[in-house]
């Protein structure tokens, strides 16, 4: 359990009772959504591909994105469901995307790893480990270029820290003074390989920032108050000073790297998983906090849980009843110019048989 002082930080003191309930509700919604997604993934013929679950990490997306204002953007890797929902996307469009339906956020063209909502400042959903880290840098570059006071929260896993594109991004972020906040969601495992077996480091992964003269901090992800308190400092540094930060948020995933990860109980002990569930689960920790604060009671907890489950179940019905893409849909959304039938799109052949 982390220091209670984080609850006393001004950014958390400013939380109203309603807002606290909202944060808790968002975490519960994300978990119920993914549990329902998992149940449907396991039924034949409903979803294809991979399913990378976020369960156990909810405080990270909810805590950090609760601080995002009009000009704050975010982008993440393939474990993207939580960031999508926390950015304000609906369960319906997300579930339908996983079902590969036309009504999905990406019209069934992206799948579980590629949710997008630029209108909500959420830029995906990216499948290649660390491939999104230069894009987040670019979004932040764009904010600065366009004169908007904001930042880009750019999430990556602990397995992404050894990719070259991330290191190139860090160098550019510091060199060009870009308002980007890199958030390493450290769940301890890059797929099936533990942090100690995959990374060489001094102290912690975020400390690598020192080599690039970038500020860094480590966060206990089980405490949403700590997540918010420390992320707020980083975001203000980005917005006001155009300085990047690396935050390493310690967290844990209950399930495998993806549902297809058959060994997820082999590279970790059952005791390790149980310990996290019992003592560090971010939803349980926050719930206890809010009960102690008198914000939540049993009745409210049950009603939040019930609504989240019902919303998730309804999203399955919506997804099931939605139409699949057509063969003609395969060839749209390839080029802006052809989609918009511009003059340029009418010159020469853009597609080949």
């Amino acid at each position, binding site marked *: 359990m982390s220091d209670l002082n984080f609850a006393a930080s001004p950014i958390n003191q400013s939380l109203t009772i309603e807002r606290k309930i909202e944060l808790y509700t968002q975490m519960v919604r994300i978990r119920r959504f993914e549990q329902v997604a998992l149940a449907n993934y396991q039924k034949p013929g409903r979803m294809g591909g991979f399913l990378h679950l976020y369960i156990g990490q909810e405080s990270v997306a909810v805590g950090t994105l609760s601080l995002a204002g009009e000009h704050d953007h975010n982008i993440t890797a393939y474990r993207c469901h939580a960031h999508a929902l926390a950015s304000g996307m609906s369960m319906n469009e997300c579930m339908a995307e996983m079902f590969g339906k036309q009504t999905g956020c990406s019209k069934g063209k992206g799948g579980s790893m590629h949710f997008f909502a630029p209108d909500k400042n959420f830029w995906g959903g990216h499948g290649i480990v660390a491939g999104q880290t230069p894009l987040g840098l*670019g979004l932040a570059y764009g904010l600065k270029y366009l004169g908007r006071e904001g930042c880009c929260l750019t999430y990556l896993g602990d397995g992404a820290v050894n990719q070259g594109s991330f290191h190139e991004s860090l160098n550019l972020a510091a060199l060009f003074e870009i308002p980007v906040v890199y958030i390493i969601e450290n769940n301890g495992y890059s797929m099936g390989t533990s942090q100690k077996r995959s990374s060489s480091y001094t102290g912690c992964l975020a400390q690598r920032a020192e080599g690039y003269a970038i500020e860094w901090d480590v966060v206990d992800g089980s405490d949403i108050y700590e997540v918010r308190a420390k992320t707020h400092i980083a975001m203000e540094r980005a917005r006001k000073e155009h300085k990047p930060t690396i935050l390493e948020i310690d967290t844990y995933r209950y399930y495998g790297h993806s549902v297809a990860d058959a060994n997820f109980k082999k590279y970790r002990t059952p005791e390790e998983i149980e310990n996290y569930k019992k003592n560090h689960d971010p939803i349980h920790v926050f719930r206890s906090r809010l009960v102690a604060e008198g914000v939540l009671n049993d009745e409210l907890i049950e009603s939040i849980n019930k609504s989240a489950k019902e919303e998730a179940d309804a999203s399955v019905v919506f997804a099931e009843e939605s139409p699949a893409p057509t063969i003609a849909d395969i060839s749209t959304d390839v080029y802006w110019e052809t989609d918009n039938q511009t*003059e340029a799109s009418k010159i020469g052949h853009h597609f080949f048989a």
Partner: protein
Amino acid sequence: MRTLTYREALREAMDEELARDENVVIMGEEVAQYNGAYKVTEGLWAKWGDKRIVDTPISEAGFIGMGIGASMLGVRPVMELMFWSFHSVAFDQLVNNAACVRYMSGGLCSCPIVVRGPANGGTNVGATHSHIPEGMFAAFPGLKVCAPATPADAKGLLKAAIRDNDPVYFMENTLLYGNVGEVPDPADGDFVIPLGKADIKREGKDISIIAHGRSVIHALAAAETLQAEHGISAEVLDLRSIRPLDVDAILATVAKTHRVLLVDESKPFGGVSAMVSHLIQEHAFDELDGPIKRVCTIDAPAIYSPHIENEQLPNPKRIVEKVLTMV
């Protein structure tokens, strides 16, 4: 008409687009204070300053990815690769993020970037610096590719590329930068050449030589020799744009001459000429009086030796010899 070098024409295109749209940014290694490794961007930093002309570290995956991200928000980066050969260190950004982000987002994102720089052999710099990837990138739906041969085309196509709302990969040639050609005066109006429009660089009736980039210059030289020494009238069609591709112009020249030689600085396996050959056999089979032939770069990594590299590449002599086996 006034003349410019190919290099000056590219510079003028960028200068005009910088003036037209405040969101256009030139980025790349040595493009600003050094004035460009090949002096294409010379003077632009002095005129436009740090915000618009940005020197980047040698960090292609980083700065190209950064440009892609910025473009999603409305910035329009024009990024120089000192050599297109360096695409390999930024490949994930170039083909996964730039080419696919629109599709994977169901059309919610767009990526209006230009990546430009030289893509050619012939300068004795060895295999790592002599890749010619236009066919490879044209194979990725979502990308556009062009390869101008003349100063006028270089200017007009680069302006179209910068205005295009999709990623355009613009392949230049270090051996063309100094070439001089007529380019319309800006005082006579905005000079833009649309992507997807081929150009007949020389009319002929006996055989069609279809090429792009520097191979067009070789084809024109070969056509002179063929006419003067062998009485063969060769038509030279410059594709200019690889994707979108002017299929109609290709089929029209085939229907006119009934014989086709494709000249392509790529290697023979796959590539632009392989695709053009396929299109001709599928859509103009009955027009052909003989098999389609090709002059490509000899199928090996680019040789260094200044004594022999020119023979590995398409050149007027190899084109003339090949045509003489066909007509």
